[in-house]
């Protein structure tokens, strides 16, 4: 059996990948439906599909090529190219066939459009693949997909449609050019040697705590100078651990030290994060209506990997009770921190709204919309729920990711529903402070009970 075949076998051998491919196939259904209607939005959909497909397809060969042993495998240098090309060619054929049904005037136009979209798609596919091979933590690029919400406002779907349908020759030529570039890029002589033994994140490693820890540590070693705990922060926590009372206080301070020491020490990183947040705020503010409120949701999603001293085999003299209280206190502190950050952005958005000018793009006037402060509670609801899922499924990261995505979808769906219902009916009967309060209390109660059960009644390794 050739090495290429062994690599391709991964496509159907891993359950997580089968689920992923089913998702990709699932997204093909609306694409086909919209194609048949001839809607302009389909082109953007195809590019997003292709980009994500490129990301996840490339994550397989990169996972293999970064293993320490692969360098020794005969002929492995060409495997990423062969693997990616196989999948790229198959998907391009698929989209060529789908777009033969795109409503065009004549057969020649149909063929040109189908060829054009297939070629343009491969460009996004190779872009996804390049991102994976370029950035060890390539998953972060998925977060930028949120900015696609802006495309409607800027009339991008129509522009894309015009380019694909009318400028098909230029698109096909560009596609061929990019494919040649991709060929040259992945057929480099020492590609296997370059990646051998490197620390890279796989398709689902963003939810694998252990793997993330190893990755973060390897990054810290690489950037030894920039990742340092400030002596003031260290001394603040160490003093409190040393002189804390005999109860749980010491362990709570210890856990908070873990959770916040690096974050509070990195002023440059923190200011960079604040700057990115401000840019996101400005961009999302002009998308109109509810989209900007995603700022309340995203930080909660990021807290899934928050530190909790439960499953550590490193023995400091803390028993199960201490682990429970330290974990609980850390998550409370994390939630307060997220609430403070998101509320600050909300306040900032309200303060700048009067001075933000209206922007006119493609004859559309865009007004800046501030964050809706009524959603400030979202982190306090989402964080305990997502951490509960993590506690229950900590040995099954893919399932954990799946369930947490559902929670994310449900919360975001509720936000959208709130706006839509309000617009239509002017009144949302069941969304009131009391029901929200009950939900938050329930979420924290469930989290506390599960956390206590795991700390007291489960294995801690």
């Amino acid at each position, binding site marked *: 059996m050739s090495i290429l075949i062994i690599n391709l076998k991964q496509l159907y051998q891993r359950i997580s990948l089968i689920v992923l491919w089913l998702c990709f196939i699932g997204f093909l259904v609306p694409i086909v439906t919209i194609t048949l209607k001839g809607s302009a939005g389909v082109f953007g959909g195809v590019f997003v599909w292709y980009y994500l497909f490129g990301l996840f397809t490339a994550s397989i060969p990169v996972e293999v090529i970064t293993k320490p042993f692969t360098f020794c495998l005969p002929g492995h240098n060409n495997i990423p190219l062969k693997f990616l090309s196989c999948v790229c060619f198959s998907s391009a054929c698929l989209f060529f066939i789908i777009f033969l049904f795109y409503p065009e005037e004549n057969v020649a136009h149909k063929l040109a459009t189908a060829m054009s979209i297939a070629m343009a798609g491969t460009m996004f596919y190779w872009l996804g693949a390049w991102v994976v091979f370029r950035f060890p933590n390539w998953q972060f690029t998925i977060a930028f997909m949120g900015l696609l919400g802006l495309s409607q406002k800027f009339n991008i779907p129509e522009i894309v449609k015009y380019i694909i349908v009318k400028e098909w020759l230029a698109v096909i030529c560009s596609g061929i050019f990019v494919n040649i570039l991709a060929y040259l890029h992945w057929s480099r002589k020492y590609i296997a040697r370059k990646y051998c033994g490197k620390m890279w994140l796989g398709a689902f490693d963003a939810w694998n705590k252990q793997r993330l820890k190893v990755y973060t*540590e390897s990054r810290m070693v690489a950037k030894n100078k920039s990742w340092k705990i400030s002596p003031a922060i260290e001394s603040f926590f160490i003093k409190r651990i040393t002189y804390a009372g005999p109860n749980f206080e010491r362990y709570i301070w210890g856990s908070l030290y873990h959770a916040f020491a690096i974050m509070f020490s990195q002023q440059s990183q923190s200011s960079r994060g604040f700057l990115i947040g401000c840019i996101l705020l400005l961009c999302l503010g002009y998308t109109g209506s509810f989209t900007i409120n995603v700022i309340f949701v995203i930080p909660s999603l990021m807290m899934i990997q928050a530190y909790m001293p439960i499953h550590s085999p490193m*023995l400091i003299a803390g*028993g199960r009770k201490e682990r429970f209280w330290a974990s609980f206190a850390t998550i409370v502190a994390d939630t307060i921190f997220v609430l403070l950050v998101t509320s600050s952005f909300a306040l900032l958005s309200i303060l700048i709204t009067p001075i933000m000018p209206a922007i006119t793009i493609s004859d559309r006037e865009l007004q800046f919309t501030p964050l809706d402060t009524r959603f400030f509670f979202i982190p306090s609801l989402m964080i305990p729920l997502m951490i509960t899922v993590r506690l229950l499924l900590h040995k099954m990261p893919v399932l954990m990711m799946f369930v947490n995505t559902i929670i994310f979808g449900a919360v975001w769906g509720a936000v959208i529903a709130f706006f839509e219902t309000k617009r239509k009916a002017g009144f949302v009967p069941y969304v009131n402070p009391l029901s929200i309060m009950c939900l938050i209390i329930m979420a924290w109660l469930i989290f506390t009970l599960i956390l206590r059960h795991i700390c007291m009644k489960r294995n801690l390794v």
Partner: protein
Amino acid sequence: MNNENIIVQIRNLSKHFGKIQALKDITLDISRGQIIGLLGANGCGKSTLLRHIIGLYLADGGTCETFGTDAAKLSPVELGKIGYVHQEGELLGWMTVKQLIRYVSAYYKNWNHHLEEKYISDFNIPLTKRVASLSPGQRQQLAILLAIGFDPELLILDEPASALDPLARSRFLDLLLQLIQSGDRTIIISSHILSDVEKVIDHTLIMKQGEIIRDCSFDSLREEFLKFTITSLNGSLPKNLPFKNIIQCEQNDNKAVMIVQNETEDNLRNIAKNLNCEIEIKTLPLDDLYKIVVCG
């Protein structure tokens, strides 16, 4: 044995991981001052047993008490008497060595700064380096320091020397001997480097497939199996030698090398004298004893 002296008491302990039974009905007492070698093949349940003793695992059946308390309910007071070096070597990689030592020592009022300084200079541990950038051997040295820095009453070493180079291993053994000599500390060492283990232990626990197949003092294990060579002084040896309880035998015309079980040296010498043979008796190294006990 005096009950006050027993610091770990395990009764009918069993543990499953799915369909795999990791521990089968283990009953065991560990007394103060014992230096125990916990031996066994990979996956035989050594680490699982140790993790029960410190309360990281919960038993499916039976009980495990450490310092008289149910191991699952150990408080900081009892855990403050236990030092543990685990085979995963998981330390806080984002801290520097100095920061990690400061962090761990903050939890213990009785942290031995003198020992810390001596250990750091003996093992040449780089204080300013980030823990994540240490070699596996250096990490292990650091883990050992963190486990012994507060003079624990019970020291549990799960594969402590697996990543150490020969020189560091020798220094580690010296340190261990010093620890043993200073006070009635109890030490449990799980290791595959038996030549090292045998220099320090006084008690052996041998595990096989989740069961303890031997729980005895190291001396009695050594006395149980004897290896001897007999050489005939007048021609060839008889084909059927009159020794009992033979475990292994390699024989040629005038010489035989044998391992016997439960035989006294005097008895062997008498038989050799009757056969007009010269006899040389040796005790077996732990390596060979382990093979005999585990493989039969």
